[in-house]
């Protein structure tokens, strides 16, 4: 008994010992980066570090009217300091995100204050820019001064925190993320459905073909699967552009006029076509493996019992393929909602998905907190689906062709 228990313990340690290096590796190279990104979505010390005294003197400010003179004095000093230490740009950028237009106010003021040696600071600041006589400016500074904030998540959900602390929806013309999130979900669902529609018959054909032919057909699915994503995207640009192969064919067949060429790329159509193509193998492969395991004699039995082919399919075949349908659909959906490259290259402006917005805030607007929040929301969605997949299918059975 103790021997068995001991050997079990040894076996357990051995197994752990084998897994541990990889676990550590993934922890450092993958999980820690995700953590950094999520941290950035709630934590931002830049303004708090650059303007500590300003923020302290704003602590006594009720939010009504203008802040005390001490705040003006402190910010005049700290802005000049921030300019010398080259953190001014970061401070200005952050304040600007709360109240658009303040980046210029902050940088201009710091430049203007460079030559001023003495107060009264309130008058000096207001003379440089009248925005300093606007409580809104100070609200923005106080808001960005919080080290930990839910602002980015509110922003990502098209909401904002008002100066009195209450949460409200963004004005109509500033609501872009929820509609985009919604669009991403709908488009992903549409692509999943398209993949199922296109993939089900061919998976069936391959699964029930004689082995030799099945192998050939399977290669037709696997070649695109193994081909570089960028190659496939390039291919669709070649095919779909205005002077592309498909439009040329349509024109020479007389189906459309030379001036009536179809716009199939750099819009949502392009995104949907190219993504369906890219994701189709992820649908076909799990369907195929499920279908292959269904013996033909079930259908024969159904037929011999008098079922019409439709009935036999609906009552006997289809239910047995449901695990494959579920696995394929979930996988395609998971991959689709996080897709970036294909929409970026063929989607134009109307074919963009939520990932492209994450990229935009990472690379162009540099609103990293917001990028992190959007990414966090997307990640949470994917995680839920991933756990669902694990529950229903089992992750170790992910299909790899």
């Amino acid at each position: 008994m103790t021997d068995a228990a001991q050997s079990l313990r040894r076996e357990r340690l051995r197994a752990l010992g084998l897994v541990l290096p990889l676990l550590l590796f993934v922890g450092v190279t993958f999980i820690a980066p995700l953590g950094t990104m999520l941290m950035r979505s709630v934590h931002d010390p830049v303004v708090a570090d650059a303007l500590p005294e300003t923020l302290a003197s704003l602590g006594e400010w009720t939010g009504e009217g203008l802040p005390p003179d001490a705040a003006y004095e402190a910010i005049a000093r700290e802005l000049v300091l921030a300019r010398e230490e080259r953190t001014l740009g970061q401070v200005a950028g952050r304040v600007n995100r709360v109240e658009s237009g303040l980046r210029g106010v902050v940088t201009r003021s710091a430049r203007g204050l460079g030559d001023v040696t003495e107060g009264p600071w309130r008058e000096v600041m207001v003379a440089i820019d009248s925005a300093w006589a606007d409580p809104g400016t100070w609200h923005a500074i106080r808001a960005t001064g919080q080290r930990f904030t839910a602002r980015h998540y509110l922003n990502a959900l098209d909401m904002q925190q008002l100066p009195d602390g209450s949460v409200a929806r963004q004005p109509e013309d500033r609501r872009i993320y929820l509609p985009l999130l919604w669009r991403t979900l709908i488009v992903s669902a549409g692509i999943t459905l398209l993949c199922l529609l296109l993939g089900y018959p061919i998976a069936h054909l391959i699964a029930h073909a004689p082995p030799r032919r099945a192998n050939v057909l399977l290669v037709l699915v696997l070649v695109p699967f193994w081909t570089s994503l960028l190659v496939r995207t390039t291919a669709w640009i070649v095919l779909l552009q205005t002077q592309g192969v498909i439009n040329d064919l349509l024109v020479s067949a007389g189906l459309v006029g030379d001036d009536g060429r179809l716009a199939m790329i750099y819009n949502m159509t392009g995104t949907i076509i190219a993504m369906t193509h890219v994701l189709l193998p992820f649908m076909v492969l799990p369907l195929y493996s499920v279908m292959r395991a269904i013996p033909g004699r079930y259908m024969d039995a159904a037929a011999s019992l008098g079922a019409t082919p439709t009935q036999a399919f609906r009552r006997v075949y289809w239910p047995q393929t449901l695990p494959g349908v579920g696995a394929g659909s979930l996988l395609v959906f998971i991959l689709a909602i996080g897709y970036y490259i294909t929409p970026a290259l063929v989607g134009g402006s109307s074919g963009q998905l939520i990932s492209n917005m994450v990229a935009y805030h990472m690379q162009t607007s540099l609103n990293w907190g917001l990028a992190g929040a959007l990414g966090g929301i997307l990640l949470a969605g994917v995680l839920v689906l991933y756990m669902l997949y694990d529950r229903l299918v089992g992750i170790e059975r992910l299909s790899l062709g």
Partner: protein
Amino acid sequence: MNPGALASGQAPRRRMAGGIPRDRLVRFAYLAFCTVVFVFLVAPILVIVPLSFNAEPYFTFTEGMLRFDPEAYSLRWYREVYESEAWRGSLVNSLVIGAFATILATVLGTLAALGLASPAMPARRLVMGLLISPMVTPVIISAAGMFFFYSSIGLGQTHLGLILAHTALGIPFVVITVTATLSGFDRNLTRAAASLGAGPMIAFRKVQLPLIAPGVLSGALFAFATSFDEVVVVLFMAGIEQRTIPRQMWAGIREQISPAILAVATFLIAFAVVLLATVAWLRRRGGSPRPNR
């Protein structure tokens, strides 16, 4: 409609619609539909190949090409790629980063799969979920996180940083394929080896490794293909010294569309076919069709 029975050619021919048996019509429609889907899958890739020999700087078939005029075809884009320092450098970067990422992912992933295959492994499901998560996490999120984290530890804009990042992305593939091979592995074989006096290392090398080798190799190929095709992390983390082939293609598509990228694409298609053939061959050798199950 009953494709199941129809495909196996055993459909009952009871119903007739006009002169033609209805199920024959259905079967015809079904085959036609499948043909269209297969064309949809493969044609875009095939179209690239002839276009890469275009003598003109266009992305479409010229009249000369359609007349099979030899003048309309040329190797100029292949020459351009071959002579371009940027493309050659990117190939070297792709190979170096891919090779190191593959080695790391394969070694660590295989070890972990061996541990995961043990019935004694605690929290197996959770660990597995964690190890496979890089595969389902939207790559834009991974890339964003990696950009911050790797920059903060001084690995931004370095080959090492990219190698580590690509290793993380390739690991799930190794874990999945090797775990799949191992699940068909008869543990009694190791026990038999042990009872014959073989130490665990020898038992592993002489008994286990040869049996799981095909799974390990195809996992390695997947990991390599992942790195070789990866562009988002490279976009975020690479400087000009780390540009890879996909990064170069991205610039080619976004910024200076030139048929040269069709030449590169043709090369990558050939490369994909070779990879695919190798994996198929490994799978037959390993007798393990498991990842498909």
